[in-house]
C-alpha cells in the first residue's frame, strides 16, 4: 500500500515562561493509504503537539527543531505558512474536538463548505452547492438541501460535528487528522459519529490519524495504535495485538485503569481499578533513563540510568522498554 505520511525524528521545542523544553522527542511514525492510526496518550504526552506539527498549526512559542514530515513529496516541517495553508483543507482535512473551532457562527453551514470547494477546487456556485449537498448526504445529515441554509447554532452538537466532517472531506484530502473528534459529544451521539467514521472508512478509505485519550474509542476505530508518554512513542502495534496484550507496562497500566462497563453476570462486581501511581513528569524535568520508570512496576536500575530506544518486536510491533511483557514460548 502507498505511503501517505512519513514522520522521522520529529522534535518540537517550546520556549515559554522562561523555560525551554521539548514536548515531542524524536517521533517516527508512518501512515499508509486507507489506514487509521490512533495516537493515544494522557495530557502532556505530546500527541496533540505531534498532530499540530503535521498540520502546521504549532503555537508561536513552539517550533520543529529536528526531523522531517514527508507528505506528497514535500517536507511539511520546512513549508512556509502560505504553502502550508494550501495543503491544509485541500490535502489534509482537519476535525477538532469542538465543532465551533472549525465553523463560523455567523455564516450558514452550506455556504461555509461551498467556500472551501470554491477556494481550493475553483468550483462554480451551482456545482459547489450540489457537491455540498452530496457531502451532507455522505455524512448522513438528514434532508441535506434543507440543512444547507441553517446556521451552526440551529444544529445539535452531533449535526455540527457532521458538518465539520463534511468540511474536512470536501476536497477529498489524502490525509484526515481528527483530534478528539467525539470527546465533547454525549455517549449516544458519540456512538453515531464513530459509526459514521467506520462507514466512511469503508466507503472512501481515507488515511486517518485519530488523536484521543480514550482507548475504547481507539479500539472501535483504529487499525494501528501509537501510545505516547512524556513526548515519545513508547509502543506501537496493530490494534488487535495491543488490546490482546500490550508490551509496554505503561500501556498495560492504562488499559487496566479504564473503568470498563461490565454487563452480564459480572455486572455487580467490577474489579478494582488498577492505579498508575504518581503523575506524568513535566517536560522540563524528565528523569534520566526511561521517563516512565518512577511510576513503573517493572523498573530496574537500568531503566533509571538508560533510556530504552523504540525496539522492534514480532508482528511489526515496536516498544521502548527494557522489560516488556513478552509472551516467551519457553516460559509457557
Amino acid at each position: 500500500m502507498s505511503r501517505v505520511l512519513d514522520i522521522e525524528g520529529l522534535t518540537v521545542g517550546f520556549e515559554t515562561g522562561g523555560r525551554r523544553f521539548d514536548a515531542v522527542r524524536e517521533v517516527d511514525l508512518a501512515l499508509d493509504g486507507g489506514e487509521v492510526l490512533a495516537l493515544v496518550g494522557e495530557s502532556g504526552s505530546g500527541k496533540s503537539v505531534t498532530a499540530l506539527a503535521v498540520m502546521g498549526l504549532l503555537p508561536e512559542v513552539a517550533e520543529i527543531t529536528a526531523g522531517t514530515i514527508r507528505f506528497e513529496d514535500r517536507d511539511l516541517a520546512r513549508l512556509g505558512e502560505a504553502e502550508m495553508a494550501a495543503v491544509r483543507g485541500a490535502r489534509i482535512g482537519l476535525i477538532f474536538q469542538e465543532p465551533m473551532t472549525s465553523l463560523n457562527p455567523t455564516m450558514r453551514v452550506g455556504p461555509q463548505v461551498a467556500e472551501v470547494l470554491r477556494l481550493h477546487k475553483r468550483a462554480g456556485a451551482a456545482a459547489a452547492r450540489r457537491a455540498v449537498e452530496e457531502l451532507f448526504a455522505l455524512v448522513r445529515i438528514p434532508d441535506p438541501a434543507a440543512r444547507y441554509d441553517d446556521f451552526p447554532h440551529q444544529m445539535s452538537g452531533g449535526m455540527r460535528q457532521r458538518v465539520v466532517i463534511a468540511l474536512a472531506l470536501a476536497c477529498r484530502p489524502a490525509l484526515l487528522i481528527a483530534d478528539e473528534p467525539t470527546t465533547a459529544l454525549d455517549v449516544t451521539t458519540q456512538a453515531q459519529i464513530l459509526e459514521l467514521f467506520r462507514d466512511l472508512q469503508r466507503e472512501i478509505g481515507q488515511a486517518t490519524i485519530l488523536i484521543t485519550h480514550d482507548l475504547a474509542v481507539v479500539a472501535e476505530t483504529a487499525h494501528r495504535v501509537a501510545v505516547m508518554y512524556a513526548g515519545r512513542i513508547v509502543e506501537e502495534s496493530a490494534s488487535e495485538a495491543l488490546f490482546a496484550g500490550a508490551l509496554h507496562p505503561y500501556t498495560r497500566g492504562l488499559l487496566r485503569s479504564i473503568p470498563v462497563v461490565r454487563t452480564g453476570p459480572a455486572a455487580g462486581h467490577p474489579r478494582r481499578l488498577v492505579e498508575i501511581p504518581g503523575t506524568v513528569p513535566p517536560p522540563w524535568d524528565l528523569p534520566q533513563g526511561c521517563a516512565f520508570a518512577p511510576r513503573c512496576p517493572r523498573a530496574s536500575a537500568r531503566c533509571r540510568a538508560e533510556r530504552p530506544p523504540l525496539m522492534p518486536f514480532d508482528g511489526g510491533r515496536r516498544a521502548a522498554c527494557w522489560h516488556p511483557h513478552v509472551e516467551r514460548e519457553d516460559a509457557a
Partner: protein
Amino acid sequence: MTFVLEAKGLSKRFAVTTGMGGHKATVTAVDDVSFAIAPGETLGLVGESGCGKSTVGKMIVRLLEPDTGEVRFEGRDIAHATHGELRPLRRRFQMVFQDPYGSLDPRQRAGDIVTEPLVVHGIGDAAERRRRVAELFERVGLRPDQMANVPSQFSGGQRQRLAIARALALDPALIVADEPVSALDVSIQAQVINLMAEIKAERGLAYLFIAHDLGVVQHISDRVAVMYLGRLVEIADKETLFSGPVHPYTRALLEAVPVPDPARRLAPRDTLKGEVPTPLAPPSGCAFHPRCPLASERCTRERPLLRRHPSGAEVACHNAF
C-alpha cells in the same frame, strides 16, 4: 428503613431567553424526580448533557431551591429551609465539583482550605484543628509539606484530593459529587475513584455520584438512577441495571458505550437514532418516544410513571414490561 436522604417529587424550572428576538421561555430542567439514599450507600446518577442530573445535585445540597418537592435530609425537609436553618445542617452534607480549581480559592493555602470549614463551624481549638487537617491530608494522599501550597501548585488529581479532604473535614453523612473525575486523565481518574471508594467504606458515608461515564458509575455505585430530559427513567441496583437494563433508553445508553475491544469495530451496532431534543420543547407523553424503538401511540400522549419491574428495577415505560 431510615434514609440519609429522600428526594420526593423534585422539580425545577428556569426562565431562559432564546433566539435573536429575546423570547422568554421556561425550561423544565428537573421534572418530578424522587429517590432515596441509605446511609453508607452510593447512588449513581447518570444521563447525557441537559438531562438535569447536575440540577438535582444542586437542589440536594440546596445550592438551588426546588420549585416543588421535598429534600428530606436525615428526616428533615430542607427544600425551603432558610439560611439560618440550613447552617447547622450544612456540615452533614458536602459537595465535590468537576473542576476543583473553580471551587477552591486560588490565593488560599491548601492547609487553610481544609481548616476553614472547621473554623466556620467552631470545631476544636487550633491544635485540634491542626491535628485533624494533618490526618485528612494523609488520608487523601497529600504530603504535609503541601499544606503551604496554593491550588495552582497542585496537579488536577491532587486538587481533587484537596477538595475531597475539605469535604470530609466536617465528617459529613452525604457527599454529592458532580462529575468529580471527568476532567482527569484515566490513570489519575482510577486513583481518585479508588480513594473515594475506600473512604466511603471506612467512614460509612453516602454518595450521590453524578456522572456521564457509565463505567465510572458502575465502579463506584451500589444503585444507579438514569435520567432523560429531566425525568428519572430507571432506577435499580447496579447488578440489575447493568446485567438487565429494562428501559429502552438505558439499553441504548449501555449499547452506545465504546469498549476497549477491537472486535467491536467490525460488529454492527444498534445505534440510537436522533439526538436528545431541546428541553425548551420536550416531546409530549414520554419524552423519549421520538427515539424509542418500542414507542406506541400511548407513549405520545401519556407520561409513564415509575413502576416496579419483575427484575426489581423501577422503570418508567409503558411497553418494556
